[in-house]
């Protein structure tokens, strides 16, 4: 409480859950969400184990040297699914989740604009155009990390699950065959460029990731916008983890090519530890944005399709005072419903533009608090 300003009379209607009863309701809701999340996450983990067993032809193709990686992916699945369920159970995310999926799975939307969803996935998730609007350098560095990690994951995850196998085509020749779930995908000559690229895919990914993460690390030390409010665990750890994984991975290749395998076992353990710790950490820190970012596509598709709802429909909601467009009608209604879910009793204000809200407050202050601002 400031100065002598009095406490409000009774509880403000929008004050959120405060009383013991309300706190109890919230606590039990949190508990039931956590229980549901644990159940779904455990089911997802079990599903992955079953997929690993079946995909590796009842563990015939499973490489037991890679067990720690495979176990880490099971933990990763549990963690990601658990946090995802908790996340989409909160009022704002739940409403957007529903609207986004409704827009994505709507047959009407698909018929009207079949290219909208693939195009949004490509621009938001693949090429991340919005990052270019923030900074070109950050966009370039992020693209390096993104494609590098994607490449690395595409190679390593199926390998550690025993889904990919490489078998010799014949007893004598340099021919190799790449197989998925035991089925032959294609054959190649291990001495060819394709063979070289296949065996060095992870080195290429490591170089890309080191380039991108190195730039971000430099930025974390020098850029004053980035250093404001940065935290070690949230901002530095992910970068250090990516760089550690990439450097130890490259060192494995270095040991094999130039040291005749010297120190390979130690490096392999170091690499494995850094990967496992990163995978297990993924659901908790900055890396979770990988899982959250697709919500941008859901949100954009929801707003885009809401604008195209029939010729007579009111497309945009205008500010009730100045008439400037605020957002799509569906988005404003969705927000007002979210605010009511959260017991924020001023959802009517959402139909005024930010400037009019400030001007209304200014005029009220002018008229009621300090007449004429005296």
């Amino acid at each position, binding site marked *: *409480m*400031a100065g002598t300003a009095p406490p409000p009379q009774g509880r403000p209607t*929008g004050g959120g859950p405060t009383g013991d009863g309300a706190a109890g309701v919230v606590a039990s809701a949190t508990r039931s969400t956590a229980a549901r999340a644990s159940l779904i996450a455990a089911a997802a983990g079990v599903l992955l184990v079953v997929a690993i067993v079946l995909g590796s032809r009842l563990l015939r193709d499973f490489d037991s040297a890679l067990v720690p990686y495979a176990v880490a992916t099971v933990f990763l699945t549990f963690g990601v699914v658990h946090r995802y369920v908790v*996340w989409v159970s909160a009022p704002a995310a739940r409403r957007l989740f529903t609207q986004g999926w409704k827009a994505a799975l709507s047959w009407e939307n698909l018929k009207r604009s079949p290219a909208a969803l693939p195009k949004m996935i490509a621009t938001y998730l693949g090429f991340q155009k919005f990052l270019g609007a923030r900074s070109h350098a950050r966009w370039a560095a992020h693209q390096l990390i993104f494609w590098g990690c994607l490449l690395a994951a595409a190679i390593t995850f199926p390998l550690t699950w025993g889904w990919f196998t490489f078998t010799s085509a014949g007893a004598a020749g340099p021919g190799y065959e790449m197989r998925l779930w035991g089925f032959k995908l294609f054959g190649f000559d291990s001495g060819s460029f394709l063979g070289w690229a296949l065996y060095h895919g992870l080195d290429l990914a490591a170089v890309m990731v080191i380039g991108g993460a190195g730039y971000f690390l430099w930025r974390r030390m020098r850029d004053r916008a980035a250093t404001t409010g940065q935290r070690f665990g949230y901002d530095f750890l992910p970068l250090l983890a990516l760089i550690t994984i990439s450097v130890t991975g490259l060192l494995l290749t270095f040991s094999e090519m130039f040291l005749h395998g010297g120190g390979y076992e130690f490096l392999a353990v170091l690499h494995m530890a850094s990967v496992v710790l990163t995978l297990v950490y993924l659901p908790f820190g900055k890396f979770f944005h990988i899982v959250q970012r697709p919500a941008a596509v859901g949100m954009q598709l929801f707003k885009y399709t809401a604008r195209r709802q029939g010729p007579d429909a009111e497309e945009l909601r205008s500010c009730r005072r100045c008439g400037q467009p605020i957002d799509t009608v569906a*988005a404003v209604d969705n*927000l007002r419903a979210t*605010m009511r879910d959260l017991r924020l*009793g001023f959802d009517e204000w959402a139909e005024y533009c930010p400037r*009019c809200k400030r001007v209304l407050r200014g005029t009220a202050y002018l008229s009621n608090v300090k007449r004429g601002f005296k």
Partner: protein
Amino acid sequence: MLGRTIFIDPGRCIGCQACVSACRECDSHRGKSMIHLDYPDEGRTVASLPTVCMHCEDPVAPCAEVCPAEAILITADGVVQEADPTRCIGCANCVNACPFGVPKIDLEAKLQMKCNLCYDRTSYGLAPMCATVCPTGALFYGTVEELQAERPGVDVSTMFAFGDTVVSTGVAMVVSGERRAPVPGGTLNLIEVNGRPTPGNGARA
């Protein structure tokens, strides 16, 4: 009990825009001003109103509550931060939910931006940029005791009424000494401004 915070006194604001310029110098959003300077009764009076983020305490940060991406974080000392660029999806929920009209959004960059009480400065005990340059003290940074030592008889409020809902904030506004009711957050059906009726409510054409 209020700690060190911003005290806004629109009665002292001369609309010079110094705060707007100084805000642009803040390291966390260099080149972009997060402060709003509005003229509520434009053309009739020179009244102006500077708006910084009020850092709502109860309900705590409605902007953060309506954020579907968990992007707006609140520090332990009650400062509502701008959206985490890693998480913000640019949905504008915060922009439209904030009853004070504070957050801005860059739709192209899919990024919300707002006043973070110059966290790079205030977390080290320095005053925010806007309060540092304000020539009239319309934006004052300090404790309520420091304010009252400089301006005897002045009182402040952190209670704002939006309809039936009262929002209590971390940033305070100066009010006249006898005021006991929350500061009005605005009247949606505005019938009079500064003692004069508005158009449609008896204003002379």
